[in-house]
Structures are given as structure tokens and as C-alpha cells.
């Protein structure tokens, strides 16, 4: 019963990671990160059947943090878009030497 859940979350995580690496649109990258977070959430919930209630507890924390992160991340993306009129991450490489 636990294995399909773990396999599913692994698939979701890899899709998210792959999306972060290959996509250029900041919104998409952001959504992929959310996908990775939720894949991990699924793992927590699945494993809580074996390990105990702590797994489900952690999910709440992750969701809270994800909500906060979404608020801040989207705010940044919006302000970037207002400035550059694009959200393509290839244009944003100022943070270097």
C-alpha cells in the first residue's frame, strides 16, 4: 500500500525538479517548486502510516511555509515583471561578480 504512494511522490518530485532545471518562465519554475514540496508532503503522509503521526504534523509546517513562500515569491515575480516586463529568468543574471 505504501509503495505506490512513494513511487508517485518520487515521480512528482522528479517532474518538479526537471521543470525547475529546464523551464525559463519564473512562474513555471515557481509552480515546479510547489510541485516538489507537495511531492515531499505526500511522502510524509505515506510514511506516517509506518513511523507515526509526526509525518502528518510536518505536512502542516511545510504547507504553512509554502504559503508564506508563495506570497513572497509571487510578490518578487510581480515586481520584476513591472520593471522588466518579462519573467524569463535568462534575463536576470545581475547577481554575480
Amino acid at each position, binding site marked *: 500500500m505504501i509503495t505506490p504512494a512513494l513511487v508517485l511522490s518520487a515521480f512528482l518530485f522528479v517532474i518538479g525538479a526537471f521543470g*525547475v*532545471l529546464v523551464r525559463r518562465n519564473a512562474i513555471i519554475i515557481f509552480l515546479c517548486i510547489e510541485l516538489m514540496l507537495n511531492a515531499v508532503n505526500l511522502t510524509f503522509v505515506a510514511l506516517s502510516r509506518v513511523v507515526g503521526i509526526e509525518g502528518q504534523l510536518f505536512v502542516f509546517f511545510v504547507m504553512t511555509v509554502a504559503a508564506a513562500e508563495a506570497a513572497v515569491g509571487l510578490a518578487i515575480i510581480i515586481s520584476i515583471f513591472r520593471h522588466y516586463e518579462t519573467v524569463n529568468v*535568462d534575463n536576470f*543574471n545581475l*547577481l*554575480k561578480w
Partner: protein
Amino acid sequence: MLALVQEGAEAVAEAAFEPFLPGFILLLPFLGFLVNGALALASGKRAADVTRTGGEWTIPEADRPFTHTLPSLVGPGVLFAAFAVVIVNFLRMQGAGLEAPVVVTYWTWIETGTFEVAAGLQLDQLSMVMMLVVTGVGFLIHVFSVGYMKDDPGYSRYFAYLNLFVFFMLVLVSGASFPIMFVGWEGVGLCSYLLIGFWFKDREKADAGKKAFIVNRIGDFGFLIAMFLLYNTFHTLDFVPVFAGAPDALIYGGSMVTTVTLFLLLGATGKSAQVPLYVWLPDAMAGPTPVSALIHAATMVTAGVYMVARTSVLFALAPVGGLVVAGIGALTALFAATIALSQYDIKKVLAYSTVSQLGYMFLGVGVGAYTAGVFHLMTHAFFKALLFLGSGVVIHSMHHALHHTHKDWDSQDMRNMGGLRKHLPVTCVTMWVATLAISGIWPFAGFFSKDEIIWYAGAAAQGPHASWYMLFWVISLIAAMMTAFYMTRMMVMTFHGANRTGEAEQEHLHEAPPTMTVPLIVLAVLSFVGGWINVPEALGHSWIGMFGTLPMSEWLHHWLEPVVGMAVEIRAEHVGAFAESAPIGGGEVMWAGLSTLLALAVVVASVTVVRKWVILPAAESDEPAGGVRSLLYRKWYVDELYDRVIVRPVVAGSRFLWKVVDAGVVDGMVNAVGSLSRAFGFVGSMFQTGAVNTYAFILTAGVVLILWAVAL
């Protein structure tokens, strides 16, 4: 009966010497320094303004601020009080018949492991004589300074330095251990530097101060090494145990004691301006003239002689050390005298004369006649202080006369003087007394002291190293005649013949005020009678002692016996007593008569010769060109020689170390390390692309790599 004897012993013990407030002797001048220093700080800005605008106070004397008038009382006042305390102690010591030195300890100064130095004063006959000279002559010079320096804006600063100097000089002569003596030794060097460069706005004067300081450092290095060696042997640096233990701990003529004495001598040659370190003293004349009198003639420069007399036990144990001291002294006496023959600056003549007379003192203590050396130190303090103060009066009045008519002439050049006898009668007479004294004419003070030194040099020429001492004896006789000549030359050029200052200037040449002439008169009296305290017992009934009318007790000799007696005993044990006749026959009376007659003949002859000279004012005469006169005028080119051989190589070497080694190698290495780090940093920074995907990719790749490694 037994009880009676014990009572008698106790009675003797009760009559022992009880020091009377010895700390106050030192504390009073220091207090004067604090007060005058505070006044100097208070008047600092104002005095600096005056210096900037002209250099002399134009404010009438009555309107001057108290910061400028109070030092006239404080400066000489503390010296007088200190002198009074010294006198009380001296009388008590004389009454008690002190045998062993009294050490007064105040607190522990240094305490590290087994090394311990107490802040203590040693009161014995030698330190008492020195304290009498320092405070007595010092007081007279302070009084003179009141008249000499009163128009100087730095008046309070001057007295602060002068008081501080006296304090350190007293530390030097009364310290009970080598380190305490060294504190005074360095302190007087500091004050000497401050006072030579007193008019530091003048670059040349500031440089003279630095020269004195640096040359003295070379000597101080010798003093320090000698201290380390002594500590290594005795494990203490207090005078009493060191000198008591020296005859047992050190082998007579051994390499250890010889090394120690030679290093001590190096220290003494620096402070007492002996060959080869004498070069700073003539330049030291850049300071105010009373300073030259006090520091560079009467007291500080005699510190080396005092030190040899203090450590006489060590020098008696090292015959080679004594020989070198005597040799340096004789060489200096002759060498400086030859230079003095041809100088035109009145203070330069006196400066070289001082170096020469210090050479005599070294000769005296070198041959083992410690009393004679200290005796000459004392009489020299009287007549050389007098000569310098007298030259101060001359310079003072010349300066004012030339200042009045705005004539741009050197007020110290004797070629611009002549005939000052009419204008400065008191100065002329008192300086003649000093001249006769320094020339060694009976019955002036210098005769007794100098003749004793020459006599002992001759007596030493009949023991070990006879040929060397013979040479020194002959040199000392020749230098004595030179002394008579250059001093007479100076007097005649200054005070006699026609005046060369100029018609208009002559009206403004005035005798100094009483604050300046009274010290001259007191010193003249001392220069006359000062030698009578040590008329040899054996000669008292001859003409030397005025057929028994002078006190014949040989007072100073007996007075110093407890201090130098041990050294004399050591010498007598190993070398034997001094000979009773001169190396080529004749007794002391005959030789004394011969030398005083010769000196007198030289004085008389040079008066007649110099009076006939055609002397032109400095502006109109050329410098001596070619031949011996030029060589002597240029001081044997020693300064130039030192410049070429020592100063320039040192400067060039320092420049090499600075430009090549420091700026090139050391800084280069530091810079190379910096550049290398920058280069690595630059390469590393290339990996920072700023592209989010790259970072994400590397992050993911890293995680995968780690997981793979863990899985393996």
C-alpha cells in the same frame, strides 16, 4: 672595664652619620621642574606667538605675566634649598667621620626573579663632593640664567629643563646601584638634548641636539653591556656588594674585569666627550650659554670621570683598562687642545678646552690617582663655569650692541670683539682669574689639581707599561702649555687691543646686571682659592703651600680615602706605590715650579704675540687656507671623516634596507601573496554566472552526486 669599652663603642656608633632629609636634595629640583613645567605649559601659546613674531619679549618687564616672572624665584630657589640640605649633610658627614657608605633605600624599583633593584641613594664622600658641586655651581648658574634668559619667551620652559637636569644629575651621582646611576645618566642626556635644541626653530641647533643624543647612545650601549657583564658575575648591581666582592670574584688583570672596564670606558667617553666620541660637545654649544656652563662644562660631562672614580675598584683590578683610560685621556687632552688653538668662536674655544680638561681628568683617574681626577673635576667646575658664564656676558652684550644697530655680525666670533675690557671690566677681571687657573698658574685652583694629575702620570711611568705612561706624561705637559696659549689668545682677542665691533656698536656694549656679575665674582673667588683644599702634605712647607700658610691637610685626599682607598690598596699590592720622583729625575716641588713657570711664560709670551696680530673682523677676513692652521681650524676634519666613514655608509645602508630590502623584498612578498589571492578569487568568481538555472543545475547535480556516493 668591659662595660666601659662597650659604652665607648656605642658612643662611636651614636656619632655615626645620620643623613638629613637626603630625599629632599633630589625632590627639590624635581619640584622646581614640575612648577616651572606647569608655568611653561600655561604660557605655551603666548610664548609660541612671541617666538613666531620676533623671538624676544617686547613687553616691559613690569607687565610680564607671572608665568614669566615666577621661574626667576622658583628655579634658583629650589637649587639654593637643595644646596643648603647638601651642606647640612656634608657637615654631619664630616663630623661623623664616615667610613662605609650609607645607603638610604626608599622602595623596590625592579623585582624580577633574583634580580632586584632598590630605589636607593648612596651617601658617601664622593657623592657628597659631587652633590656640593652640582647644587653649588648649579645654583650660581641658575642665578646667572635669571639675567641671561629673562627676555626669552621660553623662560619658564628653560628653567623647567634646567631643574630637571639638576634632578637627574643628582640621581646620577647619588644612586646606590648601576641601574639608578643609569637612570640619571640617561636623564641628563635627555635634558642635554632638550637644552641644546632649546631654540629648536633653528635647524642647526635642533640637529646639534640630535647629534649629542645619538653619539651618547653609542656610549650608553657600552654602559649597558658592562652592567650585564657585572650582573652575570655578581648577581646584583648595587654598588656596595659589587665593589666589596670584586677583589675576590674577579682575577687581577683578568679578561672579565678588563672587558667590563673597557665597556664602562666606552660609556664614559660618550658622556664625557672623549676621543672618539667627543664630537657632540663642540656642537652642543648651540644651546644657551648658561647651559653650556652647567651641563657641558661643569657637571654632566664630568659624569664619566665620576663613574670611573666610583668604579675605581674595577679599574684598579684591570691595569689594561686603566692604561686605556689614561691613553684616551692624554690623547683627548692633546687633540682637543690643538683644535682650540685656532678657533675663532669664543664658545668653540671653551668647548674644546673643556674636552681637553676632561682628558686630563681621565688621565688622572686612568693612572690610578682617583683623588686627583675628582679634584680637577671640582676645580674645573669652578673655572670652566666661570669662563662660560663670562663668555655668556660677552655674547649677551655683543648681541645687544649688534641688535641695536641692526648689524648682521656673529656675536660669538672673537674677530668681531677686541677691547671689551673697557666695557666689561668685571667680566674681564674674573675671566682672567679663570684663565690663570686653567693654565695652571700658582696659586690658582687649576695649578694644584692639574699639576697633581701630571705628577701622577709621571709617577706611573715608572711601573708597568712605563713607555706608554711616559708618553702620556709628555703629552700632558705639552697640552698644558697649549692650554695656556689658547686661553690667553682668547682673552686677548676678546678683551684687549683695539675694538673691532664698530664705532656705533661700542656705545651699546654694557656690563651685565648684578644677577650675572655676582655669580662671576663668586666663581672667581672659588677659582682662586678652590685648589687650597688639597695642598699635598709633603709640599705644604715649600713655596707651593706659601711656606705653611695654606692649609696643608690634603683635605680632599683624606676625605675621599674611604671611597677610593680600596682601589689604591689594590694598586699598591700589585703595582707598588707611586714613584717619588719624575721619570727623568727631580722632585714634585721642582716639577711643579717648572710647569707653573712654563705656563706663566707661555701666558706672557702669548699676550705680547697675540696683541701684535693684525685681526680683521670676521666679515673681512678669509678662512685660514692650507697648511696646519687650516687643518686645525677645520678640527682635523674629524666631523667630515665621521661623515664619510660612518654617517654616510649608515645612511646608504639604511637607504638600501629601506628601498631594496623593505620596499622591494618584504613589501614585495606581502603584495605577491595579496595579488595571488586576488587572482584565485577572480578565477573563482567566474563560476558565478548569475543565471538561476545554472545554480539549480549544480545544486541538483551535487545532491545526486552525494546520494550516489552514499548509496555506494
